[in-house]
């Protein structure tokens, strides 16, 4: 009789623990899902930012613009054929 009572009590405790475990796991799952979403959107935003910066860089480095500045403002010229010497490494 005493034995059965112990078993029932232990099982009740296990059931309680498992119930709390379910609640905890569910909560943890949600928390991590939210975290995952936050990190995903952070990654996306960083990617977008990177894309924008790439775009900005490419716009600044546009060949026509570089050429205008090099020739116009900086007075640069392409070396003539005779000014070039051939070297070998």
């Amino acid at each position, binding site marked *: 009789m005493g034995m059965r009572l112990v078993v029932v009590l232990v099982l009740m405790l296990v059931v309680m623990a498992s119930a709390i475990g379910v609640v905890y796991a569910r909560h943890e799952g949600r928390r991590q899902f939210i975290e995952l979403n936050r990190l995903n959107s952070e990654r996306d935003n960083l990617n977008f930012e990177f894309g924008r910066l790439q775009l900005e860089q490419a716009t600044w480095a546009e060949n*026509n613009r570089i050429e205008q500045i090099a020739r116009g403002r900086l007075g640069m010229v392409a070396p003539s054929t*005779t000014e070039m010497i051939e070297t070998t490494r």
Partner: protein
Amino acid sequence: MTPRSKPANLRFRLYTVLMVLGLASTALVVRAVDLQVVRKDFYQDEGDSRYLRDIPIQVSRGTIFDRNGEPLAVSTPVESIWGNPQQLLAHPEQLPKLAAALGVSNAELTERLVQRKDKEFLYLKRQLDPDAARELLDLEIPGVASERAFRRYYPSGEVLAHALGITNIDDRGQEGLELAFDDWLAGKPGLKRVIRDLHGHVVENVEMLREAQPGRDLVLTLDRRIQYLAYRELKAAIAEHDASSGSMVIIDVSNGEVLAMVNQPSFNPNSRISINPAFRRNRAVTDVIEPGSTMKPFTIAAALESGQWKPTTAIDTTPGTLQLAGGYTIRDFRNYGVINLTRVITKSSNVGAAKIASSLSSEHMYDVFHRFGFGEVSGCGFPGESPGFLPISKSWGPVEKATISYGYGLSVTPMQMAQAYAALANGGRLRKPGFVKGAVNPDVAVIDPQIAQSVRAMLETVISPEGSGLAAAVPNYRVAGKTGTSRRAAGGSYELRYVSMFAGMVPATNPRLVGVVVINDPGQGKGAYYGGLVSAPVFSKVMSNALRLLDVAPDNVQHWYAGGPDAGHPIGPASAPPVYPPDQPNYEEAVPQ
């Protein structure tokens, strides 16, 4: 007291009460079963739909890079502002504020809303940059919300417009490589389930229904710097010669990769409004031209392959004209007398080419041309590519055979021409032109390497004061190439409109680059129109810079060209590009009347 006439039927009352109670509880059980079991799904769905929403996750389109990792097409997020007309019309006092923020008149906005008053969704403004969208949303007008979308930007603008193509407002490829690689670039939007509150704010994410798959990046073979050079020089030449349009293609001989493909006129792919369709055409692969004399090297290759001819075999082209049966006359620019096969190329003799062709079988000539890729799409994968036109050999009469030998009566695209010259440059092995960097691209033998070598040596004589292509000379490098000048066929007859061409390879000793320049309508019937005067200088200017950018070792240090009497004279400190002596206009070539 009133005596009872009958005693109350207690048993009957008891049964009645029990029956009513029994029925009531049965009804409850039935209802409960109905709700919990029979119609469970329906109520569950109805309940969920009150707060659960499946919302798509937008993905961005992949970036397109050039061969050196420079971004050529980038998608960045923009916000599309939308409104709920029903909700907006319920608050008319907010409309002037909204109209002002959108930059439209109040009346205009109201009219648009009234037109859609039975709908719940209306785009107010699409593709706004995120900062401007935030400003609009900060007004906190009920019924106004934003939706993320992506817009494509092309930092190189006009320079790469034709090669890259464009996307539509939904970020799908419409033309060019954007269309050809749309599936690769596009990606798949994801779907997630969320819980929303009464106001539509997301309270909690429930689950991911479909993982979002972002678009993949694409690395092209094009080189932005060389592309720019080609664009700049082609545009300048077209302006200088008052031409209507033109194309240039540059191929890397070692792997068949297309380094540059430009067309004029061009357009700005960043502005979506009113682009003239004619400006959008990628002429390098969609437009066909009669190749004229640039075709002669392939006739010569057929002649060498037949075994009947050697580069030194003599041909009598006297008197500079050739009468064919049926009264058709072929003309040279002047009488070149007795010349050898090499000289036919140097001088671009039509009579010589026709006489060579008459000794060959039509089937053999067709076979050689076909092996070099003429008459078939090049397989570069560009949408809308034209196969050109090479009539089957059965249909060739003596006149057709003669005209085809010097490039009339067939048509090719500039890309096909570049592919064929690249095969000559690559020791007679043909490769499909490719646009994707690192793609496996095997070559196939189309002609004996010895023959390719002989033809290259002949083509080198064109870049000399004796030949028609002196202006294509590149300092420090040996150039092999061929000029071409043809009449534009229109409505079955030839008009006074010309096509100037130059196709060449450099450095001639071990070709690395092949370039084809095609310029339409130079001189507008008045000015210069010879390929050697109009297109050859473009080749020279672009290649001299491209070779420097690619660090190709010079094979002719301190010299302009390798052939002719001035060969070996070094370039002086102040030497200008070589020009023909005034009494020797060797750039002239015969153009059929």
